[in-house]
């Protein structure tokens, strides 16, 4: 067995059935081994490597297993970097396999050599440069383990092309267990800390839970939700935490932060105990951590101890796996009465007026997201891109029991289309709707080719405001309306583009048209593209 065959064998051992990538000579031996195994592992040829990375991310987020992307050396590999950085910021487990120049030529700047380990050092959880063909099984085993345990994240395996062709000395055998002496993720909450957490919850009059993406990554939605329900503790979420609780749940008080619900922020400010779970306390969610820290007691629960105390000094840190910790908390002796606090929050929610008004010239963006979500399946996957449209999506999507995928950590334009392709392979039977801006769409529209060839029934909606809207809004408010470099105008011709890729095409120009058009769009057989025209004057705040 040669190195390339061993690589494919490792993927099979890990239960991988779909990978996303683009070949080149430096990864050609691996593709040759894939050729022999194409009935076992589907390879999706994307149109640009960044899309392979985002597709792997979408796949991972829905399947709960690491997504795999593949690229060749040099430019192929460097094209992956934005996707790796995105997965790192969002803690998504992906395995990136990149071809490298022959090991004998490393460091000589030969054709298509790029130092991928060096280039990605700060964007990956770990990386390998394979130097010995016999290490392949061990390296793959470790890579999958590191990516999908503890705080999840991307792992890079860079493998010189000559090593892919060498023969393994021994018969292939995949390691059963992993023992990395410097990597032992701590999952069980420390007993003493647990006691203190329980004690402080018991003392709290106005407790509030704030959930982040870590709850979903740790598959702890059920436990956290049951905990809130059992002890009647209200919840807010970050953008990455959307979906832990259905939007209309009586204990859910929306997304907090700069772009969130004003009443969610009031809930945070009014609480006396904030329990943060699986969230980074980053600037968009908590703009002034120092101020908050002085006002309320904070319990910070995270699998990554380095997140605790990074941006805010917690009163009580608790390191561990959310699923495990909340399963324990559910059984804990907690006696609190939050009815007064809940009534107060209800009141706040009712009386906090949203001053934002949206233009009804063309389609109203808020009406659009609400109407769309009403029509979506209970367990549907809503994939939101970046920009104004993302904030309207996060704000107005009525989450039921499905998923909301977006990049809250890196905010990479162009994420949504490839991520939804990946999600599609993880959940072929679930409804998936992709919503992006006209700017972001054009950063990933080459993927319509991937969708057409693979005959994926993707449903893509472009919220067209003819601008890089979020930046336009910033220029309006901060730079006295000096709009510069943000006009997209009327291109491309979306109907022609849909035709070019054999997609059905829909377009809405008014609120009145919205309902019928959305119905037809969602029901369309095969892939469909819909443009929702909105007034460019709409703002998010």
């Amino acid at each position, binding site marked *: 067995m040669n190195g390339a065959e061993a690589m494919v064998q490792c993927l099979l051992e890990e239960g991988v059935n779909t990978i996303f990538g683009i070949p080149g000579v430096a990864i050609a031996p691996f593709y040759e081994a894939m050729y022999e195994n194409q009935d076992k592992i589907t390879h999706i040829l994307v149109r640009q490597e960044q899309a392979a990375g985002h597709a792997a991310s979408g796949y991972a987020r829905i399947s709960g297993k690491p997504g795999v992307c593949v690229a060749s050396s040099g430019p192929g590999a460097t094209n992956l970097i934005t996707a790796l950085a995105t997965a790192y910021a969002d803690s998504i487990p992906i395995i990136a396999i990149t071809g490298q120049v022959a090991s004998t030529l490393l460091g000589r700047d030969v054709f298509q050599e790029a130092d991928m*380990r*060096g280039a990605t*050092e*700060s964007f990956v*959880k*770990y*990386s390998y*440069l394979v130097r010995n063909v016999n290490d392949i099984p061990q390296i793959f085993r470790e890579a999958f383990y*590191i990516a999908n345990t503890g705080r999840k994240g991307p792992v890079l395996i860079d493998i010189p092309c000559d090593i892919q062709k060498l023969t393994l000395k021994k018969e292939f055998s995949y390691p059963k267990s992993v023992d*990395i*002496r*410097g*990597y032992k993720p701590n999952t069980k909450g420390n007993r003493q800390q647990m006691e203190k957490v329980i004690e402080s919850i018991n003392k709290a009059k106005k407790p509030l839970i704030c959930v982040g993406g870590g709850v979903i990554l740790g598959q702890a939605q059920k436990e956290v939700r049951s905990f809130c329900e059992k002890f009647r503790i209200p919840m807010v979420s970050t953008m990455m935490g959307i979906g832990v609780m259905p939007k209309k749940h009586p204990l859910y008080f929306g997304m907090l932060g700069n772009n969130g619900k004003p009443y969610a922020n009031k809930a945070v400010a009014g609480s006396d105990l904030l329990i943060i779970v699986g969230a980074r306390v980053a600037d968009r969610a908590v703009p002034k951590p120092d101020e908050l820290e002085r006002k309320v007691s904070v319990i910070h629960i995270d699998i*990554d*101890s*380095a997140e605790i*105390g*990074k941006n805010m*000094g917690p009163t009580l840190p608790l390191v561990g796996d959310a699923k495990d910790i909340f399963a324990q908390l559910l059984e804990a002796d907690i006696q609190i009465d939050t009815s007064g606090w809940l009534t107060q929050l209800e009141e706040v929610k009712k009386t906090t007026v949203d001053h934002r008004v949206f233009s009804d010239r063309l389609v109203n963006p808020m009406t659009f997201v609400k109407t769309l979500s009403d029509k979506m399946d209970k367990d549907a996957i809503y994939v939101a891109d970046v920009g104004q449209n993302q904030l309207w999506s996060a704000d107005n999507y009525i989450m039921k029991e499905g998923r909301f995928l977006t990049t809250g950590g890196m905010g990479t334009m162009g994420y949504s289309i490839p991520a939804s392709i990946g999600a599609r392979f993880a959940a072929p039977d679930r409804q998936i709707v992709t919503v992006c801006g006209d700017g972001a769409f054009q950063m990933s529209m080459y993927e319509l080719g991937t969708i057409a060839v693979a005959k994926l029934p993707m449903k893509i909606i472009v919220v067209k405001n003819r601008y890089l809207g979020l930046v336009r809004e910033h220029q309006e408010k901060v730079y006295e309306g000096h709009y510069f470099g943000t006009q997209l105008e009327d291109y491309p011709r979306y109907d022609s583009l849909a035709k070019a890729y054999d997609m059905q095409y829909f377009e809405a120009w008014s609120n009145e048209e919205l309902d019928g058009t959305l119905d037809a769009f969602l029901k369309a057989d095969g892939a469909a593209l819909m443009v929702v025209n909105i007034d460019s004057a709409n703002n998010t705040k």
Partner: protein
Amino acid sequence: MKGIFSVLVENKDGVLSGISGLFARRGYNIDSLAVGETDKHDVSSMTIVSTGDERTIDQIEKQLNKKPDVIKVRRLEESRAVELEMMMIKVSYSATNRASLIELCSVMGAKIMHVTMKYMIIELAKEPETLDEFVMLCKPYGILEVQRTGTIAMSKK
């Protein structure tokens, strides 16, 4: 405050750059960094001295711990650790101050490694603060070159 970290790492390529990169990227100071092999060929030992506020020093420890190639991080308390750093310093002298420079060396426990007509190369291995002092004391003679190894440290326990 000062943070002294004694860090055991995998003796593999890329580990040192990964750690120095971590400091650079997150804006942590490296006051000194010393790396060497341990009694096990696959384990290297690093002593990293940094300064920052309590939260920063705490973060450094946690971020180091996050690296899979980092086997163990120990934060050494200054009062409970012994520190040592080695320095070579090239100092010029004249006929008139030669005797006093030699006397300074013997008072400070420094060794003269090499002498020419114009300068001496002096070796001193002590706590880093003593090295700082010695540099100060040599200034009036004229310092031509200084090389320091960085601090290594060990817990007394």
